[in-house]
């Protein structure tokens, strides 16, 4: 039955014509269930508590800083003429970008029939949701009077007697990020329903059974339900794919529809999307490498999975590099002196350190993944992904701040200085993100159990067919 390969197999080695096993270690359906479900059933390891004790205070600090900001005003940030979009927007774009990998793994790789996604899609989707929560916080508090942020929604207001301005890309952003967050959430939740049912059925305590029973909506695993469920999943994947593209496209529109040199360029939409996927995979790896070690999921999240993700990072990092090149070339080719000045200024002006940090982290460091060592050694891999995360933050910083700090009016040129609140909020948003992720590991199925079993079944069939064809 559904046991797969032998543990000795290095599944990063390709055999043409044969699908490498996606999970290792003679797993059965039952052992897979147990491997995942035990994480939330057993006591958490010490490292979980240590991480939580670091992350949760940071979350509290984030909340306190938001409170301070709301009560005092946005002057507590370093945003100052001419750089009115400082770290909050940088953080927003950074976190939205991180979110993209989850949808990419669950939707685009699904459409491309990349079965290896099944071991990692749940955690990646959770990461998406949490990243989008972090992302949504920043523009929400950036509007100045955060308690009136709901004015962005088109509701028939008796106070205002007017409507939002739909010709503004910032409003498109509200719709794009709002749609993305809510659709990702239902997609994630829908994907979890069968696994929540597994948790319910394994529950020993009555309360646990009841809570998971409510959460899984009474899922029974009926084939008719599965049929509609799979259809819905495929449709959602097909909808989420253009959605994920549109979100970062709209984010890029925030910049690109303006006339500011360095922002107004047509390649921004695909380039932002590539960058988002790049950073998202970076973050997925940053999270999953420790998770698979801590929870001993090495048979589910195998070297093969890590290898594939490294390759995607390499590919998208190169795309980003191509976009940098194209942009720089076109800044010269357009013979627009302001445009070229902006790019020259990015690389050799006062923010040269940010530009080269970005370039080093985003273009050079992923090239290390050409080497097999870097794709198989988890420590090296983890270090590179950290660079990727840093680099993508710097990319948004470079785009946002360098262009603004040197706009058309030389008399108002300035140098951006973050305040302690800026720094605190960036760190705090990591606290929010990590806390949510830790709670997710604690309470929810972090691997899509039913999907992994489906792939095991398919693989068994394929092996069976191969064996059958050979004699």
């Amino acid at each position: 039955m559904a046991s797969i390969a032998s543990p000795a197999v290095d599944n990063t080695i390709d055999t043409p014509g044969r699908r490498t096993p996606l999970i290792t270690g003679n797993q059965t359906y039952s052992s897979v269930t147990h491997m995942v479900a035990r994480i939330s059933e057993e006591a958490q390891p010490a490292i979980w508590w240590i991480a939580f004790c670091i992350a949760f205070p940071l979350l509290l600090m984030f909340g306190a800083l938001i409170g301070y900001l709301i009560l005092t005003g946005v002057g507590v940030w370093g945003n100052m003429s001419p750089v009115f979009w400082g770290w909050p927007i940088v953080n927003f774009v950074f976190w939205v970008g991180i979110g993209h990998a989850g949808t990419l793994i669950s939707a685009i790789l699904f459409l491309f029939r990349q079965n290896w996604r099944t071991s990692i899609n749940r955690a990646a989707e959770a990461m998406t949701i949490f990243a989008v929560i972090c992302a949504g916080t920043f523009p929400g508090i950036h509007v100045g009077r955060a308690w009136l942020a709901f004015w962005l929604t088109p509701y028939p207001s008796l106070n205002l007697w007017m409507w939002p301005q739909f010709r503004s890309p910032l409003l498109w952003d509200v719709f794009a990020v709002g749609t993305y967050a809510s659709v990702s959430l239902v997609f994630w939740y829908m994907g979890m329903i069968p696994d929540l049912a597994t948790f319910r059925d394994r529950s020993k305590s009555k309360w646990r059974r009841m809570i998971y029973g409510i959460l899984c909506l009474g899922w029974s695993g009926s084939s008719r339900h599965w049929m509609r469920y799979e259809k819905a999943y495929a449709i959602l994947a097909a909808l989420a794919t253009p959605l994920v593209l549109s979100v970062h496209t709209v984010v890029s529109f925030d910049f690109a529809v303006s006339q500011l040199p360095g922002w107004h360029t047509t390649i921004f939409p695909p380039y932002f999307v590539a960058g988002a996927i790049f950073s998202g995979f970076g973050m997925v790896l940053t999270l999953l490498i420790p998770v698979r070690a801590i929870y001993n999921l090495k048979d589910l999240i195998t070297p093969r999975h890590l290898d594939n993700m490294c390759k995607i990072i390499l590919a998208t990092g190169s795309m980003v590099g191509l976009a940098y090149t194209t942009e720089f070339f076109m800044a010269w080719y357009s013979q627009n002196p302001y445009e070229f000045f902006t790019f020259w200024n990015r690389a050799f002006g006062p923010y040269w350190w940010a530009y080269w940090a970005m370039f080093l982290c985003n273009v050079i460091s992923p090239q290390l993944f050409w080497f097999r060592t870097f794709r198989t050694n988890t420590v090296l891999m983890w270090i590179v992904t950290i660079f990727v995360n840093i680099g993508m933050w710097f990319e948004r910083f470079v785009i946002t701040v360098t262009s603004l700090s040197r706009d058309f009016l030389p008399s108002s040129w300035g140098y951006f200085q973050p305040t302690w609140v800026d720094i605190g909020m960036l760190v705090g948003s990591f606290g929010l993100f990590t806390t949510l992720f830790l709670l997710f590991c604690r309470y929810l199925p972090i691997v899509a159990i039913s999907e992994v079993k489906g792939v095991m079944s398919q693989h068994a069939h394929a092996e069976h067919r191969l064996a059958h064809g050979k004699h």
Partner: protein
Amino acid sequence: MAANIPNDNITLPASWRGRAPVFVAVGAIAVLLSLGIFYFTNTEKAELGFRTFFHSYLANFIYCLSFCLGALFFVMVSHLARAGWSASIRRIAELYAYTIPWWALLFLPILAMVLFTPSDALYAWNGNVDNLTHVVQEKLVYLNPIFFSLRTAVYFAVFIIAASVYFKMSRKQDDTGDTEITLKLQRWAGPFIMLFALALNFASFDWMMSTDAGWFSTMYGVYLFAASMLSFFAVMIVTCYLLQRNGRIESLVTTEHYHDMSKFQFGFIVFWAYIAFSQFMLYWYGNIPEETLWYKYRMNNNWQWLGLALIVFHFAIPFLGTVSRHVRRNRGVMAGWAGLLLVAHWLDMTFLIMPNVSENTPMSVPLLFGHLICWIGMVSLFIALFLWRVGDTPVVAVKDPWLPDALAYHNV
């Protein structure tokens, strides 16, 4: 493993191969005829006739080359992703890609014009410097005959080397069945794709974008890529359909393959629209004169109808038409949709290049007629080159280790 492969007839019908010379003749005559048409419909300004002809030639050249570039990318990315499903159709793509060396020859007229004459019939930067705006003069460091030709040589070198490596290695596998070859091709796919992306990006700037030397768009290369991939899948669907109509590769290319190719085609319809819209949107919204000028030419002088036709026939109708799974699994219907998209792709290339003939060239019946004749000629050449390239080569790589996978898979 070969025992699994159904014993299909996997070579071209003999009657097809015999037709290649006819296609060449038709192609050559039609291209020359279009030159005549342009020349005689612009009697008062012979120079304009040449300009129109060269633009038409370039548009149709890129039209055909884009299939081959799409094919090349498809072959490489299939290897890169270890795609199983495409094993049975990849040879056809390899063959299309391997016609690129001959397409390099067909670029020679343009290259010769640039290198040996100071004509501005296609590229203003090649003409008299004094007629150029200051902005374009500043670009002459990059846009000059020598450097342009050098770059063209590099682009074609990248395309040709990649295409021949993938074709020849695949042919070698036909004989040996060596699975190491697949591994090797897989390993090389990454670097080749990077080179390909750079070459395609800059080739689109040089060959196409610089026909309007003042204008620029960083998205342009991506636009050409999207159009190439879309048209490539359309060509694949039509090719497979015609082969199967003639009793070839019947059980090798299944409904599942049509479904998959249609899905990709659908995906690229959306992607193309996304790229085209993004580019338009950003320039429309920014409203900066030197950027909007390109669109101004295309929104006046009747070209706007072509633009609207693109929205309808390149996006809206095929999008709605092929959204259904049932349509995608119907070979005949899909071949029809692919045919429509091939026409739309021609309109797209026309839209990109033809309004650049001069600032106020209207889209007129004589112009479209001449352009159409040139198109017929170029497509005939394309067919002839493909038939010649195939010759008696099997159109399916029978010893590809992924072939059993390709025949067995099912769309969920």
